[in-house]
């Protein structure tokens, strides 16, 4: 993280180690100079400035911080930022194109798959991970794929419906996907 420190006239400031990494986020190539201990979620939120990735629990349980790293769902609160060196990160901001929402985004809105919206980005990214490998999931598949993501508002029933809605929409868009 970029930080400007008070010059206290001692040597402590020069001891802060910095690593340089290159990565791609939502298609844009980036270079970052970071403390090795920086969490990926903080790189995304505070470094890149994409705040759609939320932090809920810090212990890999709630899944609000789920992003895709090289296409696979990862909880970014427990991955070090240095680990994405040379890799590709996709966040919720990378779902929609300029003109069109992703079917998952539409599905969540259509089926009332969110209330406070805090878990939603993580839910959608975990669901994208599922749909990318299984375009025709059953309800059970969806429930299992999302079992690492917690929601306190919806009771999940509408989240599951949202993902199934998106799967159907996606299949209709890409004939032969089944």
């Amino acid at each position, binding site marked *: 993280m970029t930080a400007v420190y008070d010059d206290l006239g001692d040597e402590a400031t020069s001891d802060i180690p910095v690593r340089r990494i290159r990565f791609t986020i939502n298609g844009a190539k980036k270079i970052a100079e970071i403390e090795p201990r920086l969490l990926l979620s903080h790189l995304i939120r505070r470094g890149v400035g994409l705040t759609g990735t939320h932090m809920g629990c810090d212990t890999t349980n709630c899944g609000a911080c789920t992003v895709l790293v090289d296409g696979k769902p990862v909880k970014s609160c427990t991955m070090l930022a240095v680990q994405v060196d040379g890799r590709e990160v996709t966040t919720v901001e990378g779902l929609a194109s300029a003109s069109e929402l992703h079917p998952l985004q539409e599905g969540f809105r259509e089926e009332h798959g969110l*209330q406070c919206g805090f878990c*939603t980005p993580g839910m959608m990214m975990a669901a994208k991970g599922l749909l990318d490998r299984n375009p025709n999931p059953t309800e059970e598949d969806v429930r299992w794929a999302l079992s690492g993501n917690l929601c306190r508002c919806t009771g999940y029933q509408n989240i599951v419906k949202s993902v199934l809605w998106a799967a159907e929409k996606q299949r209709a868009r890409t004939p032969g996907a089944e």
Partner: protein
Amino acid sequence: MTSKALDEIKIGGLGSSRKRVEDDRFIRGKGNYLDDVTLPGMLHMEILRSPLPHARIKSIDTSKAWEIPGVHLVMTGEMMATRNLAWMPTLSYDTQAVLATDKVRFQGQEVACVIADDPYIAKDACEAIEVDYEPLPVIINPEQAQADGAPIIRDDKDGQASNVIYDWEVGDQAATGRAFAQADVVSKLELHYPRSHPSPIECCGSVADFNRATSKLTVYMTTQAPHIIRAAVAMVAELPEHLIRIVSPDIGGGFGNKVPVYPGYVMSILASILLERPVKWIEDKTGNLISTGFARDVYLKGEMALRRDGKILAVRMHTDADHGAFFSDAQPSKFKIGLMHSAFAAYDIPAAHLTARGVYTNKAPGGVAYRCSFRVTEAMFFQERMIQEAANDLGMDQAAFRRINFVADHDFPHRTPFGFLTDSGQYAKCLDVGLKAIDYDKFREEQKEARKRGRLLGLGISTMTEPLGAGNSREYDILGIKMFDSADLKVHMTGKALLRTGAKSQGQGHETTWAQIVAHELGIPAADVTVEEGDTDTAPFGMGTYASRSTPVAGAAVAMVSRKIRAKARKLAAHLLEVSEEDIEWELGRFYVRSAPGRGVTIQECAMAAYSNMPDGMEPGLENTAYYDPPNLTWPFAVYIATVEVDPVTGVWDVLKMVAVDDCGVRINPMIVEGQIMGGLTEAYAMASMQFITFDADGNCVGSNYMDYLLPSAWETPGFELHSEVVTPCPHHPLGAKGIGECAAVGGPAAFVNAVMDALGGTGVRNIDMPLLPDRVWEALTNRHDVSGAPPIRQD
């Protein structure tokens, strides 16, 4: 209605399952939650918490923390005390430590804080603070708290000679005694409603920004009630109220957790004043779970006087509430144990008496209403468990016993056993819908057959009405501030509108539904109405969103302000149509001449006239504000029925089916109402099956993170079948609506627990405390005895 009338559903009015407006930003990751607020020059705060539940602080050495580059400020209780901020008042007329001075009273209590350039540095610095503690004996439940020679936890309070906070009672003791003397059967039950935590996924936080030049303090804060916070900050920090602005941005779930004032807020405010820079505090999950407003933790016992034919004659209840180290419950000032005395409101019971005691323990303070109107969850849970056991003791059918004792449809208004006035409902009809949906008789047959083959099936019913939407102001206040609410509507000249209320959505979808109420009242399409909440500089004064009070109170205010606007628009219409006001009729979105329905003006034309062509002497503009003080609470009714199968070998139980019949009056947005019910049912399932916070004998919190504090995921959560056939409009709400957000979380747990207990029928087991973990069910089944969930007391 003329042919020109608008189709209400098409304009997104009452009854429209309009898609949510707020979703457009949330699905894009463009919400603006507290942690997304970034201000120039902003610093970061971290809190050091006590590892011990009860200890005297001998010394705090912060010198090493100050030496870390990037640290701007290290604060301790001693330093807060010099500014008279070491303690703050709670919402229940007690005091709470902001930063500990004399001793720590629960594990996780705030001991010091660091403000630094970066949260990582602040955390490093917290670890460099050295605190020397002298451990003290620990109290973790009411029994220990009241034992002879128990240490006095609140020795900071003058005259506090024991750990008892209050003794409170309600009801008619003499009449109850007389009824018990006449009883054929007396049924008894004792249980513990475990400590739980609302645990929204987003934790608490604040960004305090004090501007020396203007003397204005702006605080972005995760609060469900920004105006109460403004008043509290004015009183605690002794700042002038007009120079305080509280902004509640998008809230990542509240459920009651974000009602109280927390020490972290106060620290960040003081730090910003001292440093003259914005200071951000983001709580971590452990901090949230171990220090902020818990819920429940009440020991309930009671007995019911019964006539052999099934009639309930009287109820007697006693509650011992564990409030933790500070009595910081958020609740109406008159009622020490919240609305516990709403118990048995759905039943016609002639006499009742309740005694309640509250005690201090070495546990986190709170007692917030977690998806609940002030302890009604405990009340309704005890009620429905008691009803099931009473019916069993009489050898009566669960549904038949309820029917005998329900308040009949023609008996409203009805005085409840403890003195509330219920006003409407069709209880038996709702129960019939539920029984049909679960196929009651067939299930009872299957249950019998299964039992022969060693399979344990069970069915649990929970039926209840609960008081939602505090207040009326005669009875309900928080710290003396009356519990009304407000709406402010500005109709622009082009007929578009801006609505603000004193409520604050945390996922309830106010931006969507409030616009629907305006659409219903004025015919302005919902899409033309912007809704804003949460900024005390712009929103009218209101008491915020909790206790399912948004629709009953603020929603009513939206209807009332819309009607004020319509009354003025009518005068404008008369002027435009050149007729007298009496000759004008209203239909959705349009005034017309009674004798010539084709001659009319739309609400939009009236709006334009308010700015461009008003009659002589009329004040220009089309804006107004309404403050709404409801005449009564709203009383929705609900039937929840669950069927389960218990594995006799492992104690694991699965939900076979869950049916919910909610009569919450008129539904403004049915889609959103159903979303609320499903969310509530899931929290009910969570409490019944896995979610609780307990303590070991040394006072260590078990449940301090999501690995120990289990919340159900999509995998565990059962499916729900919802029914909305029965609609009994609220007689006093302007739209006939009742509260709904909490019903399922309040009434649901008993359905699951009753189902499991029903499956265990014949084993002699009367009660297993929630959560019904497999090991508890297994223990009950194997050893044929009740299983308590109370935290263990050290025996040595």
